[in-house]
């Protein structure tokens, strides 16, 4: 054994640096996020145009979406206050005006129509914490009622006092004979005390956490207040689970009482198809006559939306957004959505055109129809730019589907008064030629059958202008597997960090280099973690971590930032650092830094649930919780 081999064998650890093949970037990157397509032959100008066009459509769509989302909340408030202010004089028997807010996180503020002088409206919020029993609920709510009533009175008297210092208090209600106590007699005598009608609105927050027995008893208690004159009671129940859950905890007689007059409003705005329809419609309008949507893509949207019950609308917007982006990103023909760009059409675009299935069927049709062979050959070889002209001719052709969709919607809404249809589903049925099936749900449609009949048509080159999910991009990126997603993010820090600022004429060469060569300690450690076996010795782990970090670059960086006055360090920090550097030497300092990073990252892993210690006492060995190796 040679000496070298022996020395090698005595080493506690080895450093192996496998060579990583760097990916060759096929074309130079422009300033836009898009890259050249058509095997890199696309001109820079067209890439830029593609980007601008995408941006334009995207912002157009989002302006509309914002408006829709804004309208959602306005509609909601309007709906709530209209329920609360509905006329109750025609009621045959006394009952609560009961409003269930489904999917509410109890933060919904209730806006009242303006107060008038004859009626006092008071909102009483009750949270489960404030309501351990009926007595406390009653006292609290009566206290709130009283303070709500007296607040404006007090302001008024204050104003008066400022005008007339002597101020006669006789205007204040004489309360003594009736007395004010915090129970229902306050409600009963409200008219006598304050000379106003009373409209009480109980806002029960987070009803699911209430003790249902207490809630039930409280409602029964309030029931007797219904018979008082000039008193109206509204109950607003904020429910974040579902109605049947609440229902099963209440007495049947209470349910019967509440049911006399009740309204349910779903705040999660995914009930019904109103907003999703509007969003989809606005997307269609944005890309109107330019883009088609493939049936499979629509099916994908429908599937995913039915899987996500709570954030339906957000999901739809996300999918549409993503589809638009990926279309512009990967399809060189997207630039021709703006027909003026056709002047830039060159021979690079020809090969994909010839491969279009619709074009091929067209040529086949020509062959069958015994068209002159020169004509066909001219078209295929683009002689005298015939193919180009042919393409341009079809560029402006519009797909009749959007127009027909508008017609169907118009018939449904204006002629038949049907509003609870799913527009996306309707579109899907139209694409697959099953419109008839979809409309069967509303038998009234029979009379309009001849108007509504629709057959989907193929337009030549339409696949170049179709949003599709042929490359599995959506399912992969929109719904990544949690673990692979986590893994990818932890390996590539640029996926979670904002892109490094690249200033032109950067001053310090070190910093730029440092950013590109040194990863986050967390990511660095994770790549080691992935390769480790399920039980990890911490010391070995640390050594490996230390070895893999590019020591010389960090050393350079430390030196540089100590010396350079313009670095990000604060003055006192730099002082400390230079003292440490003098006392301990650079090597020691670097070791310390790495140890700090290591301990930090390890504890972060523990908090993320990637690592666990085997016992509470020993920290020598940690165990992996996931990625436990093959």
């Amino acid at each position, binding site marked *: 054994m040679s000496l070298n081999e022996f020395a090698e064998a005595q080493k506690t650890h080895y450093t192996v640096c496998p060579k990583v093949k760097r990916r060759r970037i096929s074309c130079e990157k422009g300033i836009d996020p898009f890259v050249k397509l058509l095997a890199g032959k696309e001109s820079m100008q067209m890439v830029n145009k593609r980007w601008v066009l995408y941006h334009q459509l995207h912002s157009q769509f989002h302006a509309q979406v914002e408006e829709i989302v804004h309208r959602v909340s306005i509609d909601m408030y309007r709906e709530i206050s209209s329920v609360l202010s509905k006329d109750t004089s025609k009621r045959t028997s006394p009952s609560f005006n009961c409003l*269930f807010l489904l999917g509410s996180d109890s933060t919904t503020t209730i806006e009242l129509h303006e107060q008038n002088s004859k009626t006092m409206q008071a909102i009483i919020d009750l949270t489960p914490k404030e309501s351990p*029993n009926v007595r406390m609920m009653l006292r609290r709510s009566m206290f709130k009622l009283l303070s709500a009533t007296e607040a404006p009175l007090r302001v008024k008297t204050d104003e008066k006092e400022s005008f007339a210092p002597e101020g006669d208090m006789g205007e204040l209600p004489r309360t003594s004979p009736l007395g004010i106590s915090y129970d229902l*007699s306050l409600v009963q005598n409200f008219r006598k005390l304050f000379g106003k009608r009373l409209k009480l609105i109980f806002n029960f927050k987070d009803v699911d956490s209430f003790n249902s027995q207490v809630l039930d008893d409280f409602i029964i208690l309030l029931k007797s207040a219904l018979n008082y004159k000039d008193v109206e009671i509204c109950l607003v129940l904020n429910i974040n689970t579902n109605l049947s859950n609440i229902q099963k905890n209440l007495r049947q007689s209470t349910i019967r009482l509440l049911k006399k007059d009740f309204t349910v409003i779903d705040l999660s705005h995914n009930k019904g198809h109103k907003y999703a329809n509007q969003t989809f419609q606005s997307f269609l309008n944005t890309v109107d006559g330019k883009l088609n949507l493939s049936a499979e893509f629509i099916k994908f949207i429908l599937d995913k939306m039915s899987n996500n019950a709570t954030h339906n609308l957000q999901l739809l917007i996300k999918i549409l957004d993503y589809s638009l982006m990926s279309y512009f990103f990967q399809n060189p023909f997207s630039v021709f959505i703006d027909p003026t760009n056709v002047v830039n059409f060159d021979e690079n675009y020809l090969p994909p055109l010839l491969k279009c299935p619709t074009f091929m069927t067209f040529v086949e049709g020509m062959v069958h129809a015994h068209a002159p062979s020169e004509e066909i050959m001219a078209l295929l070889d683009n002689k005298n730019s015939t193919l180009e002209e042919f393409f341009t001719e079809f560029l402006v052709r519009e797909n009749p589907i959007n127009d027909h969709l508008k017609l169907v919607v118009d018939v449904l809404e204006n002629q038949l008064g049907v509003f609870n249809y799913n527009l996306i589903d309707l579109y899907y049925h139209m694409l697959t030629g099953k419109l008839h099936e979809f409309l069967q749900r509303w038998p009234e449609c029979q009379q309009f059958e001849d108007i509504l009949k629709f057959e989907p048509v193929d337009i030549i080159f339409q696949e170049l202008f179709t949003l599709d999910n042929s490359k599995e991009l959506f399912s992969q990126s929109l719904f990544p597997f949690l673990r692979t997603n986590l893994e990818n993010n932890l390996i590539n820090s640029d996926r979670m960090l904002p892109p490094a600022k690249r200033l032109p004429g950067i001053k310090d060469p070190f910093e730029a280099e440092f950013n590109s060569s040194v990863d986050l300690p967390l990511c660095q450690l994770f790549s080691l973690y992935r390769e480790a076996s399920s039980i990890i010795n911490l010391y070995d782990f640390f050594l490996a971590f230390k070895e893999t970090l590019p020591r010389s670059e960090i050393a350079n960086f430390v030196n540089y930032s100590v010396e350079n006055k313009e670095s990000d360090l604060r003055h006192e920090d730099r002082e400390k650092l230079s003292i440490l550097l003098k006392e301990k030497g650079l090597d020691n300092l670097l070791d310390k830094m790495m140890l700090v990073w290591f301990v930090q990252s390890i504890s972060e892993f523990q908090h993320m649930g990637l690592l666990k210690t085997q016992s509470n006492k020993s920290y020598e060995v940690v165990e992996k919780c996931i990625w436990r190796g093959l």
Partner: protein
Amino acid sequence: MVINVPSVKFRDYQVDAVSSFVSEDPSFAPPNVVIQGHHSSGKTLTMRKFFEYNPQIYNCWLNPIELVSWKPLLQHVARMISSTLANLFPDISCEEQDALEAEDFYLLIKFLHAVLRSYQLLEKDISLFVVFDGFDQLQELDSELLPKFIKLHELLPPNLRVQLKFIYIVHDTAFLSRYSTYNLPTIIFPRYKHEQVAEILLQKKVSEYIESEKLLCKVVSCGLDPEDSTFEQIAENYIKIIIQAFHSYTGNDIVALGDLMDSKWESYVQSITAENINEPLSLYRSNIDLYTTTGDTFVAEEEACVETGDSERATAYELSCISKFLLIAAYLCSYLEPRYDSKIFSKKSHLRAGRSSYGRRAKMETNPRYLQPSLFPLERLFSIFQAIFPVEEQENHSIFHHTEPMRANVEVYENLAELNSLKLITTATPKNVDYLSYKLKWKVNVPWEIITELASSVNFDIADYFSGLHY
């Protein structure tokens, strides 16, 4: 001293009894009278009518159910008495007392002392009846309260002009039997009989329904102009049918029956057409489902209209398909032993050696469904979820159809989070949950009834997994 006896249906005896105990002359009336009877047996009605017919007998009413605990009850007794007297005899000035001060019994006595003393100027003795309508409905009732009121008259001076008399209306016989040694005069209101219920309801509701606006509108919109007797016939039939349909459910509870009638009247009226208005039988048939359920639910109507298309059926229980399977998987995790997972869910059990492969499961002594849900880690949930989630068989080789087993992607986690916030799946520790901790265990929070309902909505036979588990 003439006491008018009102006529209350089927309560003649009770009215007679009341009239012999309640009188304006304090020397003829006992200080305490108890009226006992169950819900809707006409107690309040009878008493109200009695005092209505005899305005010369002074009375005031209290609703203990509104007052929740005894302290406000005492304050209200004080306030009621003083304000009633002040209204009755406005000429007599009495110094103002704050009723809120009557926070305890001795303070109540003190208060009453002061108030009643100022009415000594009256010419003759009068009795003031204080009626506690539903004394045992007080939320925080204790056994000391009633004796204190019973003995109240002994603590007040006997020579007062105004004598307080208390009438306690009590629902519960058990409550009353505690005080049987006090020998209180007690008038018992028995429950109404079936025929009596029918008669009372007919008398009360027919006129109301005949005049109801909805009936008139409907009949007019049908283009009919029937005689009054037809209306009567319709209302009468309706009431009779409701009583027959729901009597077994409500018992002789007039209020509950009346509520049921009111809630169904509208839909009954809606089904009236020109053809069936004179034929009770066809009218009955046209809305038969009114009589089969009580309809005491908030959700019924919505669910009915949701069950239309295929894609909508997935959200029939307001849960998505993935959520449902997650919940089913969670139920299986909680109620099946992890030992047998590989046998039950694996398709390759023959590869395993040992007993676990051919699974001679020891039968359990009790059905696991009767036990508490056991805890499980999330990993187990996901693997069972993957095993039970249906895989679409080829047919369409597009990526839009899951042809490979469902894996835990973001969608699945989203649905899990939703189930957690709906509290259908909960963590072992309710507070301060660290969701990233590897120690965290979960359990299902759904009973068998709901899970079978859910499973049937996605055509999953969950009962199969629990058959033959126990003796």
